[in-house]
C-alpha cells in the first residue's frame, strides 16, 4: 500500500482531567486519565498491512502532563513485533514543566523494567528517553 514508507512519527499525550457530579445525592469526583497507546496500536493495525510493510523506524513523542501508571504496553509491543522490517523504535517522553522533579528518574526506571517493553529493549529495537520542557 505504501511501498516506500520508512519513517513513522506519532505525536501524542498523556493527560487527565477531573469530572464532578452528583450520584445518589452524594458528590461524585472522577479523575479521568487519557492514554494514547491504544490509539497508536489501532492506527498501526488499521493503516498498514503489517507483515508486508517495509517500515524502518517509528518515533513516538509523548507529552506527559500527568503522572501515569498502569499503562497497558502489551498491545503496542505485540503490534510492533509484527513489523519485521523495523530497525528502530524510539519512545520519547517530554515531561510537562509542572511535573515533580524526581519523576523523570523514577519513570525511566519503571519503563525500562516494564515486562513487555523489556522484550523490545533486549533485542535492541527500543530506546526510551525522557526530557523536561
Amino acid at each position, binding site marked *: 500500500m505504501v511501498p516506500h514508507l520508512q519513517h513513522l512519527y506519532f505525536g501524542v499525550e498523556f493527560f487527565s482531567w477531573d469530572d464532578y457530579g452528583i450520584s445518589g445525592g452524594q458528590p461524585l469526583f472522577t479523575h479521568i486519565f487519557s492514554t494514547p497507546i491504544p490509539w*497508536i496500536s489501532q492506527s498501526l493495525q488499521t493503516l498498514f498491512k503489517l507483515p508486508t510493510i517495509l517500515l524502518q523506524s517509528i518515533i513516538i513523542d509523548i507529552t506527559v502532563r500527568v503522572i501515569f501508571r498502569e499503562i497497558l504496553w502489551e498491545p503496542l509491543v505485540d503490534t510492533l513485533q509484527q513489523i519485521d522490517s523495523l530497525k528502530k523504535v524510539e519512545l520519547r517522553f517530554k515531561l510537562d514543566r509542572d511535573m515533580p522533579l524526581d519523576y523523570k528518574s523514577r519513570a525511566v526506571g519503571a519503563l525500562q523494567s516494564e515486562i513487555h517493553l523489556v522484550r523490545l529493549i533486549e533485542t535492541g529495537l527500543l530506546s526510551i528517553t525522557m526530557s523536561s520542557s
Partner: protein
Amino acid sequence: MSLKPSFPVELLDEIFYFIRDDAPALRASADVNQNFADIVEKHLYHHVTLGGPEMTAAQLSKILVDSSHIITYIKSLGIYLSRTNSLSFLQGLRTEEEYALIRVLPRLLHLTALSLHANIEPGVPWSDIHSNFKLSFLDCIRSPTLFDVSINCVTGFPLSLLEESLQLKSLSLIGSFSSGGLSKKQGVVMFPHLQSLTIETPPELVEWLDRTNFSQLRSLVIWMLKGTSADFIAGILSNSKSLTYLELHSPHRGESTYRRVSIFFRY
C-alpha cells in the same frame, strides 16, 4: 606590501547560508564591515515575517523604496494577521499597516514560499480580508515560481482556489476551510509535484483530500481533530506510493478544551 587575510566570498556566503534562521547573528555579521554586510544582505532578507515583532509591512515598503534590489533577495514571506489587525478587519476598518501590506505584496515577485497565519482563535475570516490583498495573495500562490504555501487559521479560505496552484511542492493547511466552488468530478484535483503536505482534519478538508491526487508525495503530516475517523488516511496512503515519511498527531490532546477527548480510558 602585506596582503589582508580574507575568506573567499563563496565560502562566507556558504557560512551565512547556514545561519539564515538566526537573524541576530546575521545582523551582527553585517556590522563587521561593508564586505560582510554585502554578502549577508541576501541571507538577511531571504525570509521576511510581517505582522510580528520583526518588521511591519510599512517598514518593508520603505526598505524596498530605499534599496529596491532587496526585492530579489526575498524568497520566503510569512504574514501574521494579528489580533489588532483582525479586529480592524472585522470592523471593516483598514489600518496603514494593511494598506502597506496591500502595496508591498505585489512587488515581491521572487517569492518561492508564502505563509498566511492568523494569530487569533478561531481565526480570521477570509471573507473579511481586503479584496485587493486577496487578489495579490492568489496571484502569488498561482505563480509558477511559488512552491511552498501555508494557510493557517484563515477561516473559510476556499479550497477551490488551490486548484490552480498545481506547481506546489509543499502545502500546509491548518484550520477550517470552505469547500464551496469545488468541482464535483471525482479525482479532478491533481498536485503532480507536491512532495510535502501538512493538514488538520476538518470535514471539508477530509472530503477534499479524498478526491485529490498526490502522486509524488514524500512527507505527510496529519494533525487529527477530535471526531475524525482515521479511515481517510488509508485512502491517502493508497494514492501516495512515493510516501517515505508519515507523521500522525493524536486527536486526543489535553492542552485545549475544544480538542478534548471523545474516547478515554479509566484505571
